[in-house]
């Protein structure tokens, strides 16, 4: 490929890519309308002794399984219902514990140290 074709290809690709991105990004306001008022506090830590904060919706459990099952089914041509895991019972209590493990170890262990 000579220098001119390469230039054409290069600038062509750059423009196609960035115009494509521009088009997609310009649709963002349609899909993600309301800007949130403030950034969500990273990993809000529930009060250890409180009973509040059932932040995780009760439907959270089966999502992962459902998605991967659907993906495998779609890919392998299995009937989607032929392999079934339905037993991740939506815990009524739940608990909003889903925060990064190491961060927590850290925070948890400190009070233990200072007792």
């Amino acid at each position, binding site marked *: 490929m000579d220098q001119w074709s390469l230039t054409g290809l290069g600038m062509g690709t750059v423009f196609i890519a960035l115009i494509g991105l521009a088009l997609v990004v310009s649709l963002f306001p349609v899909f993600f309308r309301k800007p949130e008022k403030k950034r969500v506090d990273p990993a809000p830590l529930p009060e250890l002794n409180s009973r509040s904060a059932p932040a995780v919706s009760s439907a959270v459990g089966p999502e992962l399984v459902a998605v991967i099952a659907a993906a495998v089914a779609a890919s392998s041509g299995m009937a989607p219902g032929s392999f079934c895991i339905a037993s991740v019972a*939506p815990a009524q209590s739940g608990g909003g*514990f889903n925060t990064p493990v190491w961060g927590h170890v850290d925070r948890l262990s400190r009070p233990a140290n200072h007792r």
Partner: protein
Amino acid sequence: MWESINSFLLSTGFMNLTGGQLLMLAVSCVLLYLGIFRKYEPLLLVPIAFGMLLTNLPLSGITDGPIGNQPGGLVYYLYQGVKLGIYPPLIFLGVGAMTDFGPLIANPKSLLLGAAAQFGIFIPFVIATYIGFDLRAAASIGIIGGADGPTAIFLTSRLKPELLGPIAIAAYSYMALVPIIQPPIMRALTTKKERAVDMGGIRQVSKTEKVVFPILVTILCGLLLPAAVPLIGALMLGNLFRETGVTDRLSDTAQHALINILTIFLGVSVGSTASAERFLNPETLKIIALGLFAFASGTAMGVIFGKIMYWVTGGKVNPLIGSAGVSAVPMAARVSQVVCQKENPGNYLLMHAMGPNVAGVIGSAIAAGVLLSVLG
């Protein structure tokens, strides 16, 4: 020129994307969603899912090895730290520097519960051998029940590296789901009275005890099970840095810069093993299912041993702390606390549950050592 443009077009990913890869891109977006918006262990799931995404972009070559003079792809090099078993122990160094073994030292009985919960490794292991997995694959699946990411990745990278993707995803996802998976099992196996047991305060542990503990664990476990030395040794060295009071610089770096750098490298390169060919097959579903079963059986066996200790001690041990033995530090301990407080709101069980919780980390590293020394 048109033909070169044509050949260029044929070399784009759009022209080479398989259906499987498209599906995997979707799966990684869902995992990113779960990690970011549902906060499923985001520190690991975000890099893992992003690694999955990258590896399923066709022709990028980022996981290819070097060919002749041509260097390999970025992720190929990052993956070497997984393949050679370097990242998981060094991540354990940081985990050790973050872990307080005080509650365990205060209450050594905890260690029994941390042992019992390791049935959550071996029960699914046996089942997996019966549904068609070979021993090495079954061991890698069973280790999901250890509820310990670095241990699971260390063992799987040695025994069955082609299963790294689904096993790491299952391990971290279920760790995030511990507050949903465990409570029903815990309630089903215990009575209201058992769940309400108040275990009182825990004794204060001196600095000397905290310093001696990691050294002793390394020597005893290392002598009993040489294959566990990389994991246990690194965990305990990190903990020693934490407890000496004169190595705070090292402890600080182990639990920040070092663990974070390696977590990024580990996550991306583990995720990159989940290419469409490898990931999209019924085995993956079986792994996901067995992984759930692993967490459930570990929880159950922990609680059952807790009940045994309840009886033996005449009601002094709350069996709910048994479920914390699966590790998943510190979530499993918090679940014990929450379930207990449902019955007895003033009961502060957390510190008692932290004992089995950290014991579970040691327990599953030992289990991994046994599997590695026999099958590795």
